[in-house]
């Protein structure tokens, strides 16, 4: 039932003084922070255009926004929009007094919920377009709705939840997409694909579905590989290189693929990714042996792939066919995304078939894990975590790292490793916590082809400081 306009406007007016308070909408809850800047961190949007002449600029920024999402063809549901038209209408002439504050509240709320790869922009402080790089259509819609709900409550309390509009992209075909009824096509004005807009979400949902095989190819199109040097901080050497799958990013750039596609994607996509990485590592191992290079290659494979009997068998059989004794001694296998609390018997079931085919196995668990009693005796050489996409203040991340490494040492009696140390503060924190193996941009960047063991000492971390 529609609320009386005067009643809502009256409440809005009473809220106005509160809304104009400089502190409203800017304070963050304890323990939260803006997304950290990383290789694929959200970029701060340019100010929204405020004149008709700036709409073309907005269109250009939307194009850049979409290319920055890392998908050459947009996947349905990843582009979402929150519109404040109805709130603006309700405020009427008083909107201008309110708009800046509302915009700040909306931006702060959106930014709190973005993760690496997500980006957003806004138009006229009324429309906020968000691109979720890593969520499924359903997840993106849910998340966008939650964000809109939070904005509405911050602006207007419970009364406001009906006054925000949420729309989602419903079809994407190589650069074309469908969003709300705004004529974004006119604003974009370019020739990089057509834009159409539909209101019919039923049609949109049907059109958005794609055959699983085609979707897998879409998602993994343009896959390439690089290696991340892993520092053995105890022996002062880089002796292992972890294979990292990459997808095209902005223009000719690339970005690590895992986080971007694993969340919300079917097991088939993850399995296909793991197979591609395995085949690449096996090929590169061959080349290293021919060149007489002695170093270790780390092959990451997801728990999801190994957890299914059929896929595990396929994966292991391929290793068995390709590896000889010499190659096995140079191969590490890292089982990624191991959930907390997997029973020991299950871990042994998954680890045991791999052991004959590699030098050692590593298990990657969530940073929040504190109980490692289940991993003791399962056959893993080291236990680790990945902090690449962790958000929040660094001091909290450091506390979690300390707990993680200490628990592994105390409860599992195993060395620990850490991926994603992308700043010196995180590298030193990892060293202080006791991680034996550390990798990330602050240690060494991705390289195309590992060539051999490299001496690497603490002082080498700081060489860039002394050379600038």
């Amino acid at each position, binding site marked *: 039932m529609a609320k009386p306009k005067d009643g809502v406007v009256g409440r809005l007016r009473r809220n106005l003084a509160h809304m104009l308070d400089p502190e409203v909408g800017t304070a963050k809850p304890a323990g939260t922070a803006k997304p950290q800047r990383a290789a694929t961190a959200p970029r701060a949007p340019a100010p929204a255009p405020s004149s008709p002449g700036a709409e073309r600029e907005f269109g250009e920024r939307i194009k850049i926004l979409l290319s920055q999402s890392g998908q050459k063809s947009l996947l349905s549901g990843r582009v979402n929009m929150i519109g404040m038209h109805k709130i603006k209408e309700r405020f009427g002439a008083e909107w201008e007094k309110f708009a800046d504050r509302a915009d700040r509240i909306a931006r702060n709320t959106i930014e709190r919920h973005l993760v690496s790869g997500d980006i957003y922009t806004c138009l006229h402080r009324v429309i906020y377009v968000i691109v979720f790089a890593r969520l499924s259509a359903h997840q993106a819609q849910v998340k966008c709705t939650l964000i809109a709900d939070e904005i509405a409550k911050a602006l207007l309390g419970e009364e406001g939840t009906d006054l925000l509009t949420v729309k989602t992209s419903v079809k994407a075909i190589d650069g074309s997409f469908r969003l709300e009824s705004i004529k974004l096509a006119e604003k974009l004005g370019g020739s990089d694909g057509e834009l159409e807009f539909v209101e019919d979400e039923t049609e949109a949902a049907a059109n958005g579905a794609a055959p699983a095989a085609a979707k897998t190819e879409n998602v993994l199109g343009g896959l390439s590989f690089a290696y991340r040097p892993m520092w053995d*901080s105890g022996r002062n050497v880089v002796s292992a290189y972890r294979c990292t799958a990459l997808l095209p990013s902005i223009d000719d750039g690339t970005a690590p693929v895992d986080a971007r596609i694993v969340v919300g994607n079917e097991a088939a996509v993850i399995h296909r990714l793991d197979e591609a990485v395995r085949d690449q590592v096996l090929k590169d191992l061959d080349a290293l042996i021919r060149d007489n290079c002695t170093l270790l290659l780390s092959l990451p494979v997801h728990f999801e792939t190994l957890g299914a009997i059929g896929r595990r068998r396929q994966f292991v059989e391929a290793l068995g066919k390709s590896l000889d004794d010499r190659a096995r001694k140079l191969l590490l296998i890292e089982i990624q995304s191991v959930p907390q609390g997997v029973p020991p018997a299950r871990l042994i079931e998954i680890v045991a078939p791999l052991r004959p085919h590699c030098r050692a196995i590593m298990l990657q668990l969530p940073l929040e894990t504190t109980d490692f009693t289940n991993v003791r005796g399962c056959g893993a050489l080291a236990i680790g975590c990945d902090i690449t996409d962790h958000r929040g*203040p*660094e*001091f909290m*991340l*450091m506390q979690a790292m*300390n707990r993680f*490494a*200490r628990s592994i040492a105390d409860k599992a009696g195993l060395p620990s490793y850490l991926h994603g140390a992308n700043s*010196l*503060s995180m590298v*030193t*924190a990892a*060293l*202080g*916590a*006791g991680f034996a193996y550390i990798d990330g941009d602050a240690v060494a960047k991705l390289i195309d082809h590992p060539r051999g063991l490299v001496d690497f*000492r*603490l*002082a080498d971390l*700081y060489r860039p*400081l*002394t050379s600038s």
Partner: protein
Amino acid sequence: MAALATKILVIDDDVIVRETIIQILEDRGYQVVSAEDGKRGIASFRSEKPDLVITDIIMPEKEGIQTITEIRRERPDAKVIAISGGGRIGNTDFLKIAQKLGASDVIAKPFDPDDFLTRVSRCLGEG
């Protein structure tokens, strides 16, 4: 007794260590300002213009060696003491690097308060 105008900036993410150092220094008559990480430490260095900086190494946001390098870049004659507990690894390597990159002195945690004050005084060129 230290000159009342001598200002010391203490940078350490561990609140207990930071407050302990502040207490030791203030009891000696120094004026003390503090920061909880390297990033805030650099900002304080610029705004407070201390006579001496005492900084931890392992810190969030910006770790100590980077902090020392930036401080010395801004003010090459800045006096800096690096302190470190090293965490679960030894602190020797960190402190050696800190000294190479411009720390006037390095102190390993835990430290004796009297020895600490002697080194502070020496760094400041006090008699």
